[in-house]
């Protein structure tokens, strides 16, 4: 996965220790930068050996996260999301 990729956060809702906030699940955004690899916190939390994963800073618009009628739709939220939560998505077409 490279920077500037357009990604969707998986809409999964697993139990247990997860660092993907649910307000971002199912949402799409651009990779702002790639970090890591870092060990998977979902495994470290239980004292288990952890896979090393790329970590992506993904940028979401407020419109994407909260809806087109968000008061400031072009303000943004950036969050660090581990690669296994991200899928490539089709970028929005320019109109």
């Amino acid at each position, binding site marked *: 996965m490279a920077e500037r990729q357009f990604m969707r956060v998986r809409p999964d*809702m*697993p139990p247990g220790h997860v660092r993907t906030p*649910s307000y971002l699940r199912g949402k799409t955004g651009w990779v702002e930068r790639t970090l890591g690899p870092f060990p998977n*916190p979902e495994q*470290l*939390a*239980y*004292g288990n050996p952890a896979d090393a994963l790329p970590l992506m800073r993904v940028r979401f618009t407020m419109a994407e*996260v909260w809806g087109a009628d968000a008061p400031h739709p072009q303000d943004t939220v950036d969050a660090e999301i581990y690669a296994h939560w991200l899928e490539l998505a089709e970028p929005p077409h320019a109109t």
Partner: protein
Amino acid sequence: MTNDPQNFDGRRWHDMGGNAAGPIPTDQHDFSLWEKRVDALMVISSSKGHFTVDGLRRVLEDMGPEAFETMSYYERWIASVNQNLIEAGVYSTAELAARMTEVAARGPTYGEASDG
């Protein structure tokens, strides 16, 4: 998010982003010595490899929302540090139990109980 187990949607209590909430509280307090010791014990015992900050967070999350509302930050931290150290086998529940009883017997205040 719902509190009805039959209709639980998977969203956990600590996952707060986007929830409705009131004004940002402005009160601030300095930490007491026992709280700074809790912080130090977490940093030291995790840096020595007995558990990770992920384990600390996992236990804090599993305590549930009532703990967040009724316990102070460092009360929750020492409970989580303990849980992690017990799981790591650094000491046993029996050892902790005996020591806690002995500590309490030294006197009714933190100062007296610390003089071991």
